């Protein structure tokens, strides 16, 4: 496929919308009480309902509804007081009912948004709707001795609770799509409605992509690109698709509405089916389920139970703790990280220093050990205590840098380590003064140089004092005292 060069692409305006499927973190499936265990032997988490045996009926899991409502609220959607399930009819071996139970013209929630920032520019991306549906099973086409002739079906995943989040066609670049998906994932993880683990298929993404000449008002014909199961693929596929479409249009071709599949190996998208042979899903209201009602009272209760959303938290970290935007962003990447930070900040009483220690030294130790913040051997409380000792001058920064690895190793609080190793800052001013006097006496040449205006020598003298105190003298105290004594 001929791709358009950048200067040609620059004449065009890409228009992108995303459809994101998220598996809800419920204990059971959406319409039966089968467990949602990952990695169970094939076809073991099944029952008459998810096997679609004759006579079996779906019963909606209210746990799933609760998570779907929370997700909708996290995306600033209006949750409809009444929504309805519908059947989406199609034949496929991993769809045992012969239809998917989804929501069609009356979805759970609508009219939301996600705020993104790309290259320092803020933008609001509309969320058209959030609706609930059940997942299909898995068709296994290879890995068996007779895979050349047979396909196997595993129905463990069949009936997994999903929400589909449909965005407005508000994105104008693959970077914006990337940022949107990042923000969306972060928000859903914060409210704990899903692990959003893309490798396990808990977050799946399709992109609708079209191009139009810059300044045009009418969107071009779009292609739906499926199988974008990583953030990197999302970006690659969209960029490929934009270049392909521009080349097509520039060469006088006509875009057809179609579904395309992203091939991760080649980095290309290939046509799967055109609109003409698209399924007629024959949607109609699901007669086995009653309309889903979400009362104002329930909604209010769920809203009250929601944690602070990452975007709000980020803003607060800047205003309340005086952090830089970038630091606030790093510290709100995950909910455990943000909670860890807030505890360190609160225990230490020094949010800025707390941020530096968390993002610097502790992050380094965690990275080297291959651990997540949730697994940190140093608790937030202990790190807070360490930061507090530094801030109050009870421990020098240098000593603290030696103490932290020991805390990391043993899980101990900083206090006992500092005591045991005698690292506490010298609080006896007389002792500090004595060391200073000794250093002045032992270095007359440097003292002379200082008095004659070579103030740079001060660093050497302070170093000598610190050395003599084995790092336990507070640097600012030493500085002040030396200056006074040297006049």
């Amino acid at each position: 496929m001929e791709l358009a060069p950048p200067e040609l692409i620059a004449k065009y305006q890409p228009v992108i919308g995303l459809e994101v499927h998220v598996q809800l973190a419920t204990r059971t499936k959406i319409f039966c009480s089968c467990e949602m265990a990952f990695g169970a032997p094939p076809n073991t988490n099944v029952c008459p309902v998810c096997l679609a045996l004759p006579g079996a009926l779906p019963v909606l899991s209210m746990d799933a509804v609760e998570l779907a409502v929370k997700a909708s609220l996290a995306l600033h959607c209006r949750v409809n007081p009444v929504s309805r399930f519908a059947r989406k009819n199609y034949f496929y071996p991993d769809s045992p009912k012969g239809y998917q139970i989804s929501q069609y013209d009356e979805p759970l929630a609508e009219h939301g948004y996600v705020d993104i920032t790309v290259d320092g520019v803020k933008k609001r991306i509309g969320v058209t709707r959030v609706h609930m549906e059940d997942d299909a099973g898995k068709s296994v086409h290879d890995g068996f001795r007779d895979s050349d002739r047979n396909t196997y079906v595993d129905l463990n995943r069949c009936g997994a609770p999903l929400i589909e989040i449909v965005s407005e066609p508000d994105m104008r670049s693959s970077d914006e799509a990337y940022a949107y998906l990042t923000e969306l994932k972060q928000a859903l993880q914060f409210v704990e409605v899903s692990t959003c683990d893309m490798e396990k298929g808990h977050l799946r993404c399709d992109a609708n992509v079209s191009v139009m000449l810059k300044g045009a008002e009418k969107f071009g014909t779009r292609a739906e690109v499926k199988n974008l199961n990583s953030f990197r693929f999302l970006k690659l596929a969209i960029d490929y698709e934009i270049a392909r479409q521009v080349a097509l249009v520039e060469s006088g071709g006509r875009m057809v509405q179609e579904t395309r599949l992203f091939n991760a190996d080649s980095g290309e998208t290939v046509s799967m089916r055109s609109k003409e042979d698209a399924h007629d899903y024959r949607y109609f209201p699901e007669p086995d389920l009653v309309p889903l009602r979400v009362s104002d009272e329930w909604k209010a209760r769920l809203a009250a139970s929601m944690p602070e959303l990452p975007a709000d938290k980020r803003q607060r970290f800047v205003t309340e703790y005086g952090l830089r935007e970038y630091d606030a962003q790093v510290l709100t990447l995950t909910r455990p990280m943000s909670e860890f930070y807030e505890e360190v900040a609160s225990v230490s009483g020094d949010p800025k220093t707390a941020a530096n220690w968390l993002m610097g030294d502790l992050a380094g130790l965690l990275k080297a050990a291959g651990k997540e913040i949730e697994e940190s051997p140093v608790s937030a409380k202990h790190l807070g205590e360490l930061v507090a000792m530094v801030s109050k001058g009870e421990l020098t920064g240098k000593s603290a840098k030696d103490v932290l690895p020991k805390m990391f190793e043993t899980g101990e609080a900083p206090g006992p380590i500092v005591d045991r190793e005698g690292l506490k800052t010298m609080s006896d001013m007389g002792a500090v003064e004595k060391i200073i006097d000794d250093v002045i006496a032992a270095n007359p040449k440097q003292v002379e140089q200082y008095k004659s205006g070579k103030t740079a020598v001060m660093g050497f003298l302070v170093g000598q004092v610190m050395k003599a105190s084995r790092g336990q003298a507070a640097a600012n105290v030493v500085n002040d005292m030396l200056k006074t004594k040297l006049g």
Partner: protein
Amino acid sequence: MTKHTISSVRAGLLSKEFSAVELTRQALSFAEAENPKTNAYLSFSPERALAAAERVDARIAAGEDPGALGGVPVAVKDVILTKGLKTTCASKLLENFIAPYDATAIERIEAAGGVIIGKTNCDEFAMGSSNENSAFGPVRNPVALDRVPGGSSGGSAAVVAQGTAVVSLGSDTGGSIRQPASFCGIVGVTPTYGRVSRYGLVAFASSLDHIGPFARNTRDAATLLEVMAGRDPKDATSAEAPVPSYAASMTGNVKGLKIGIPVEYMKHATGETADLVNASFRKLQAMGCELREISLPNTDYAIDTYYIICTAEASSNLARYDGVRYTTRSQNSGTLSDLYKNTRGEGFGAEVKRRIMLGTYVLSHGYYDAYYKKAQMVRNLITQDFNKAFTEVDAIVAPVSPFPAFKLGEKVNDPISMYLSDIYTITGSLAGIPCMSTPCGNTSEGLPVGLQILCKHFGEETMFRLADAFENS
């Protein structure tokens, strides 16, 4: 066996005239001997029946109550799942399907001491009005063996009429209990939609499907319904409403009960059926009921509405019989598409295929609004007709079918005429109200005719009170 009722079985057990095991053995051997005449049973379940009977005998021996259905031989339409027993839906596609779980109704019947002795023939997937659409041969009407027993629950009606079961379960989507009850001269009840759990009833048209009882008198039908009725967490559409004691409602007193006769129904009624129904009206008047004409103005649209909704839902409900899992699979299909086409093409009978195609058509893109959506609107109007009528009357009475049992083969090649035989039963189904058929006499040829009684949602008590009084007067 032929004469037993629920209360006579109970009396016999408690007086030790017979044990539940003895009665079950006798019922099974009688039913097996009689069955070739009618082909009403598709299978018998002696092991399960005897095990249930033994439990009843043990209860009695322990001085406990045998249960509301203690020792009563029950036959079950073969569209209701019975664990460990074949549940074929009278279809080749499920010829070898053994149900791995019990329908909620079945669990409740056995918990009340009922003894399931066999599964009954019906129209394939409950689609039909004569029981001639069974993959395992038609059922003959025990009253006149050259005639149909009605459908789709023809087998369940026949076994009760024949005396090879005391009571039975049918399913009703557009008249499949009331019409065969009328043809066979017994009582058949379609309860309020949601009154009995549909869990384990093989779906034909989910928004219209009901499980309901057949019996030789109203009291037995009411007892069986009471056992099955009530909220089931496995069926989201089952009703929360408490289940009253239906026996207590049957006081025999119907004086002053206001009864409506829909003019739209009577204008079609002719011949002996109309004569017998009209005679019933006079009888009700003589019993002290106040009769008046009422109007259900949207009745004329009922058949079209029904066939759009039921076929649409059926086309989706029957998608699961695809040859991939439990359905009998067509052999030698090279591709997935062939597997579907061959399995379904060879497996489904003509009437089922006809309805799947109709339903697929009315739901397809561009037709949904014109057919399905409009049909739902008309369905609401029909329901409103009834709701309005029930502000004026306590019950509505009408014919069940325009004609009595017809001859086998008479209508098989005329589906439209067959569909018309449901003309009086479909409106009640669409509205989801309780309705029943109770015998009101025989034609000169000795063919039974049923009187239909319809009441408002959850108005079963009034319906049973009227039917019981009518039956005993």
